[in-house]
């Protein structure tokens, strides 16, 4: 018996060492580390406040100071930082397409050794894990998701039923509109990334008119911009602009965060506003709306074959400098605790499937719409090469200004397509949602 015990001593000792090592490797950032971690992201205003409130408990627990800087020209700032050798420790990334460029440049760290990869994959939907993976290396993680293509309205103004088709929406809108109230409010201004709300419109039309396969071909650069499908999506967007509050200069000059304001004015300027889940934050902060004064329905189907398809996006984060503070922050941002803080602020959907409690009926319903959709497609412009994305932004602005130039705009985009997808990618500023 004693010899058995002696024989077991060494294996037990080895196992204990392994257990200790394992415990060290997976430790959550609960101990005090101190120091600072620099973070750059696209959030400002209420979104920045939300981020700061999310990281506040982290700063308290770890003693690490999070130095955040917000910019709408995220892409330009990051490329400039890479060129000068001065990059932030952690950064929000403009989109999967741009993340891939940063990764191929060797600027992004492999997160496999930085976060608990098993837990992340277990908690996150495969589509998002896939989008953050380049050549088998996980270089970007999503810390929150956005459901796009929602039609927002003021239930005190629009009191009719939820339309089941796009045609029904237009018919009901005409019934509900009174006086000078227009059908839509559209706002495209967003600094260096102006025009992105219009790209969302076109993506939603294309997905629902022509289906996910055509959408995928378009994203992949195999569908010409001059095709009947893309043209049809642009024309549908053009009709929306024709039914919009204010004229084209108003649409182009209004910042997207103020896009929903006319829903709550007296008399209302418009009935509907097309935006993602994050918009509730701006309804409250910019338009003074209160809970109950805004609600949504999903973008209605146009072609029944492609019903129950949704578009969405997410906030991608990557690590440029692998420091203990950066590791701790990344680990923290993915925890259910941090994710819960995001969703409690409203307007954000968690990418962590362990987070199931949403603070209000709107967030809860948005999460249901997202998870029950048969087909999910990521924001197309975020997946396109930088050059293509930049040209798309310029193209929608040009088309909004001068709708009669549609042929010219589409032909120009097609010329860019041939260049952008052949690897001739420029590092120009572009836009996250």
């Amino acid at each position: 018996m004693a010899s058995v015990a002696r024989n077991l001593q060494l294996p037990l000792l080895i196992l204990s060492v392994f257990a200790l090592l394992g415990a060290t490797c997976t430790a959550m950032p609960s101990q005090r580390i101190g120091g600072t971690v620099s973070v750059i992201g696209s959030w400002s205003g209420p979104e920045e406040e939300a981020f700061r409130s999310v990281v506040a408990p982290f700063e308290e627990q770890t003693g690490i100071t999070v130095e955040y800087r917000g910019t709408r020209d995220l892409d330009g700032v990051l490329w400039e930082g890479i060129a000068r050798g001065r990059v932030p420790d952690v950064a929000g990334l403009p989109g999967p397409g741009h993340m891939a460029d940063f990764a191929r440049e060797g600027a992004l760290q492999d997160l496999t050794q930085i976060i608990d990869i098993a837990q992340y994959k277990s908690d996150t939907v495969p589509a998002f894990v896939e989008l953050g993976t380049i050549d088998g290396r996980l270089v970007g993680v999503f810390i929150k998701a956005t459901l796009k293509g929602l039609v927002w309205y003021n239930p005190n103004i629009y009191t009719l039923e939820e339309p089941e088709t796009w045609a029904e929406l237009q018919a009901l809108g005409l019934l509900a509109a009174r006086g000078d109230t227009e059908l839509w409010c559209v706002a495209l201004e967003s600094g260096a990334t102006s025009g992105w709300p219009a790209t969302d419109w076109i993506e939603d039309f294309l997905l629902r008119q022509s289906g996910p396969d055509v959408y995928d071909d378009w994203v992949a650069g195999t569908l010409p911009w001059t095709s009947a499908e893309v043209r049809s999506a642009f024309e549908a967007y053009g009709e929306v602009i024709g039914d919009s509050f204010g004229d084209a200069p108003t649409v182009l000059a209004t910042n997207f965060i103020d896009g929903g304001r006319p829903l709550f004015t007296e008399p209302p300027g418009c009935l509907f506003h097309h935006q993602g889940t994050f918009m509730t934050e701006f309804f409250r902060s910019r338009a003074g709306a209160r809970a109950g004064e805004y609600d949504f329905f999903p973008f209605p189907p146009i072609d029944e074959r492609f019903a129950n398809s949704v578009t969405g996006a997410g906030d991608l984060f990557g690590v440029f400098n692998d420091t203990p503070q950066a590791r701790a922050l990344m680990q923290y941002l993915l925890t259910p605790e941090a994710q819960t803080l995001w969703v409690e602020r409203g307007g954000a959907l968690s990418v962590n499937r362990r987070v199931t409690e949403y603070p209000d009926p709107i967030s809860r319903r948005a999460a249901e719409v997202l998870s029950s959709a048969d087909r999910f497609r990521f924001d197309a412009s975020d997946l396109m090469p930088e050059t293509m994305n930049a040209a798309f932004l310029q193209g929608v602005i040009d088309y909004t200004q001068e709708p009669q130039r549609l042929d010219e705009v589409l032909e120009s985009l097609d010329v860019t397509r041939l260049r952008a997808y052949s690897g001739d990618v420029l590092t120009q500023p572009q836009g996250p949602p």
Partner: protein
Amino acid sequence: MIHALPRLASVPWGRLLAGTLLLATVGTLALDIALWSGQRFRPPPVSFIQGQAIYVVEMLMALAYGAMGWLLASRVSRNALGWLFLAIGLAMAVQLTSTFLVQAGHEAFRPVEQSVLLFAWAGSTLHLPLTVVLLVFVFLLFPDGKPLSRRWARAGWAAVGGAALVMFSVGLAPEGLQWFPSLANPFAAPPVVRPLLPAASLLGLTLLVAGALVASASMAVRYQRAEAVERAQLRWIAIAVLFLTAAGVPFILARYALSMDYASGEMMLAIALAAGSFLPVAAAVAVLRHRLYDIDLILNRAFVYIPLTAILGGLYTGGVALAQRLFVAVTGDRSDAAIVITTLVIASAFTPVRNWLQSFVDRRFKPVNQEGHARHSPLHELNERVAALEQRLDTSLSPPKRD
């Protein structure tokens, strides 16, 4: 009950099972094509594979291994080779199913179903190591179903042990599924076990590669020791084995031991698959050109009688229709004479058409050496016995010599 036993014994279980396995392979491939076409043939989210070509090659390979396996297992069912080929083909087809199901799981914004996750885990963990083991046994057992000696057989067991260790390491990897990097591993090892995984992987890989190399060497030795006829039968197989070892071992090392970008990994996989495709082709050459197992006679008959049936059937149907029209045109009514005449014409055409087909097939698939019957062939043994018997009969029946 007493009568039932001989009946059961007379059922060709080997052929039935081989046919069932081939059908399962073909059916699974049909399902794969249906699933993939529903996804508009988009490349699935698999590590190392970015385009569509690899999947097409894998489908053709599954079919080639399945068909060759069925041929061997149904004719020489006691030889393990046919079953090994069938297993490789079916496993490849099933693995493709898991791949396309995973792709379908990426369509929606929710976790993949647990059943798909488990299927993907099995495909990602088991498929490649098991295929290597099956190929190692093919190398060791070709062509007579027996290893050169017990000592050589140890290579097979080394490969089995190595594959088990690799599967242990990959199957418990906390990083997720190796072939499907976007999926979490449902059996991720607890932290206490994780440090053991690299060691298990290294040891397993060493054993697996050693097994493959030794099995490959056994084929070379077998070729060297073979006599002229057997050497001709083994030549193509030996080349295929060496080619597959040279391409497969670097790929296995790249897959399990090295960190490699997808483009390089895909190129190595493509080379390994090309080499793997050569094996059933080499086996077919050995069977058809060098009369291995004497299956060429069966194939020869199949190549003659299947087209013969189709040609005569077509001629008969067309002939009856034509004759009926002629009768209607001449007499104004249909007649049974049309059927009788057509049947007579077709019956008279049977022998010329068969002879023509036979000579065509003989020209195309004529064995290189008519004298060189397979050594590993029941028919060969039977022929030898019949020849001996004929000689005895000749001797005993021939009139006594007069001096």
